[in-house]
């Protein structure tokens, strides 16, 4: 079962986690107090650039019957939609630019170029997802209700179609998100999910807002713009659909790289119940994953390549994440915590692997939710002895005691490396666990091999014995036959 006690999992004491929290608070305050004209210029320029690129793309598509124009226009429109979605819509709605006090660039007024309304998205994303990040049954972004992304969730036969569901989700991402957000808002408002189709069926505020927005968006891209381009309507329609598709795929990939590669941990409600501010920070750190990106790719991902930093400080301006990431990494070193990152391709492949693996029933999988690549728990360290830590006496011990008891008992003996004096936390524990687990496995294999050899040996002796017996028996029978 996913992490129920983040202290035990992280191999940090409550005091450590608290001081980690204070250091993160300081990072936040430093950024906040240094915000100024340069940052404001950054977002205003981004907005202007996005609008110019979009206008240029739309204009080019008037000539979209020509192949070059179609390609150029589609490319420009895709880029514009991606910037609008990630660096503008996502980040402004997070309140990252509210500090400017600009009514037009503010979380309360910004509306984005996506099927769903910004308001519903904010309720589902800013609140549910960012508050309950990666907590089973509380964070609906964990698989978006259609994918099984951790083996903490029970397998159902429907999960077999996961590979196909994944493709649909990727291609129609904005619709998936819109419906997801709609149902999240209904749930928050206590409205039953039931049908959401118009007209009279179920008229409620969230449904109305959803259809109004979706209608406007669809009309713009699939009716009005094509109609405006006259004879080029067909190619314009195709271009608009393609740009939406490209934006969807990109957004999907970025989001999936943020929480589903190996190392992005999942948590239980037990962990959440009595969570301190420091533990909240730690959960965000351990639940998120980055991917390596240069300035251009960082920009195109809305700086969500810095997902860890974003989850720690969702409302700090995105252009500051690169500098924040340097400090966060320093903290990871100091507290010996893992900092999950890798190339975009690698991170996506890890998520992709999980999607396909978890389509299968658990019996076919080797690992459990305590030590799987996509989710583990403090029990991962049970039953193995790590060089820098005292032995954890197995799950029987855990069954009778809580992990924090164990911690309380053992804390004084570890945390600092006796030789180097450095803090030993989760990162060392993970590495050592990996080695220890491998050794354990090797050892078990060895034992098995030996047992097998013994058995084989035994079998061989027995066979020999039998043959001998049989030979003797043969001799006897022959003798008897002859005598008879």
């Amino acid at each position, binding site marked *: 079962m996913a992490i129920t006690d983040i202290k035990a999992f992280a191999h940090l004491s409550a005091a450590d986690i608290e001081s980690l929290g204070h250091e993160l608070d300081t990072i*936040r*305050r430093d950024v906040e107090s240094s915000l100024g*004209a340069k940052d404001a210029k950054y977002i205003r320029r981004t907005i202007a650039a996005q*609008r110019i690129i979009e206008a240029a793309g739309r204009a080019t598509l008037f000539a979209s019957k020509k192949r070059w124009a179609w390609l150029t226009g589609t490319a420009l429109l895709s880029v514009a939609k991606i910037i609008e979605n990630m660096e503008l819509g996502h980040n402004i709605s997070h309140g990252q630019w509210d500090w*400017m006090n600009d*009514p037009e660039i503010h979380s309360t007024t910004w*509306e*984005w170029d996506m099927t769903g309304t910004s308001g519903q998205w904010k309720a589902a994303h800013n609140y549910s997802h960012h508050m309950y990040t990666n907590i089973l049954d509380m964070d609906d972004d964990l698989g978006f209700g259609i994918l099984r992304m951790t083996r903490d969730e029970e397998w159902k036969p429907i999960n077999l179609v996961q590979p196909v569901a994944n493709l649909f989700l990727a291609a129609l991402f904005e619709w998936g998100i819109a419906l997801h957000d709609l149902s999240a808002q209904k749930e928050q408002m206590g409205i039953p999910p039931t049908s959401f189709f118009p007209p009279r069926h179920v008229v409620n505020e969230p449904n109305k807002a959803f259809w109004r927005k979706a209608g406007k968006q669809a009309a*713009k891209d699939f009716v009005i713009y094509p109609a405006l381009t006259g004879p080029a309507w067909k190619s314009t329609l195709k271009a608009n659909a393609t740009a939406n598709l490209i934006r969807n795929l990109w957004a999907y990939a970025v989001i999936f790289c943020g929480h589903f590669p190996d190392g992005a941990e999942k948590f239980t409600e037990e962990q959440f119940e009595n969570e301190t501010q420091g533990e909240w920070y730690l959960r965000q750190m351990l639940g998120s994953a980055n991917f390596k990106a240069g300035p251009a790719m960082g920009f195109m991902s809305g700086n969500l390549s810095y997902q860890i930093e974003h989850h720690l400080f969702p409302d700090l301006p995105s252009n500051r994440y690169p500098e924040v990431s340097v400090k966060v990494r320093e903290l990871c070193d100091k507290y010996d915590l893992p900092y999950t990152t890798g190339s975009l391709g690698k991170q996506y492949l890890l998520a992709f692997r999980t999607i396909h693996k978890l389509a299968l029933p658990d019996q076919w999988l080797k690992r459990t939710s305590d030590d799987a690549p996509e989710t583990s728990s403090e029990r991962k360290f049970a039953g193995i002895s790590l060089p820098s830590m005292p032995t954890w006496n197995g799950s029987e011990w855990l069954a009778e005691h809580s992990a924090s008891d164990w911690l309380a008992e053992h804390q004084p003996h570890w945390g600092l490396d006796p030789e180097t004096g450095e803090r030993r936390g989760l990162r060392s524990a993970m590495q050592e666990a990996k080695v220890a687990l491998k050794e354990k496995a090797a050892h078990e294999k060895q034992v098995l091999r030996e047992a097998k050899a013994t058995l084989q040996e035994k079998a061989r002796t027995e066979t020999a014995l039998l043959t001998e017996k049989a030979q003797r028996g043969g001799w006897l029978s022959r003798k008897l036959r002859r005598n008879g």
Partner: protein
Amino acid sequence: MASKSGGFSVRGLREWLEAPVAEGGTAGRTPLDTLRGAAARITTPLLPDDYAHLINPLWSARELRGRIVEVRKETADAATLVIKPGWGFDFKFQPGQYIGIGVLVDGRWHWRSYSLTCPPDWSGDPQHKGKRLISIAVKAMPEGFLSSHIVSGVPAGTIVRLAAPQGGFVLPDPAPDKVLFVTAGSGITPVMAMLRTLDRRDTVPDVLHIHSARTPDDIMFGEELRELHERRPGFTAHLHLTGEQGKFALADLDEVCPDWRAREVWACGPLPMLDEIEKHWAAAGLADKLHVERFEIERNATAEGGTVTFAKAGRSAEVDGATTLLQAGEGAGVRMPFGCRMGICQTCVVTLTEGHTRDLRNGKEHRAGDKIQTCISVAAGDCTVEV
């Protein structure tokens, strides 16, 4: 197009076309609304304004904007700003009202309110060649970060944000026959709009204006007052220099203005002066003849806690400096919007319309015009939020 055919009307069509701009913009109507509304169908979810203002910042009615076209020194520490408003500004305000103005300083918009000093719709003035302009006067306050910034360094050409004119300190039309203005310092600014309006309407009744300033150099619009005094027989300007004569004593009123009891009075100036005037008029049983305007006092928010007023709900609560506004509102039975309660989701954001609050996370102070997160904000003195 037929004006009406089978439930279809030009008006209905126009309303349909204008619908997106009606819901998207906060500024008033513009003559271009039908066009903007039609264009909004292709710029959705944005307004055409969002593209237009990239070319000219004034081409937007999403929010009221203006461009400072002239900065005129009035005294050593006061200046008049002449502003050309953008789309959607309603020039039909009343003399005496004030506007909100947002100025960009170091990446952040700062909002303050200042009285309009111009008469409504003065485009007819030959002096302004038909341009639709407004003016405000700003006096630098010793503690006033923004007023000093404006007076000492905002260049012409600067784009500012505007909030629609408001306020009940206004001169009715027609004006009463007998008027008394009592002002001091920058309290003269709303009265200046009233005087100019009367002058423009060519109907200056019997007006006496008592104005106090420290020295002759501190008198804002001194030249204009003198000129008006000479040109308009009905208008008398009585200047009182506090540097030489001390504070204007209301006991002297009978001498300066023997018929003050018969006059409708507008008074604007520092708080102690207004308090005194209010007492004086109340004692004379003439409270209903008196109109006062209290300029918001600059306060630094070292204050902890205070009375929080929830404007829309019509409730208020006394709080200390540790209770968040969200808790305070809930305690007072106000339906407060909230999500995470820890400052990350922005669900609880409301506008602070009066007073100061402090952000618990970084200690930063917010003031009227700012949008604040109630879940991490506490009152720094009395304040009002729009919820």
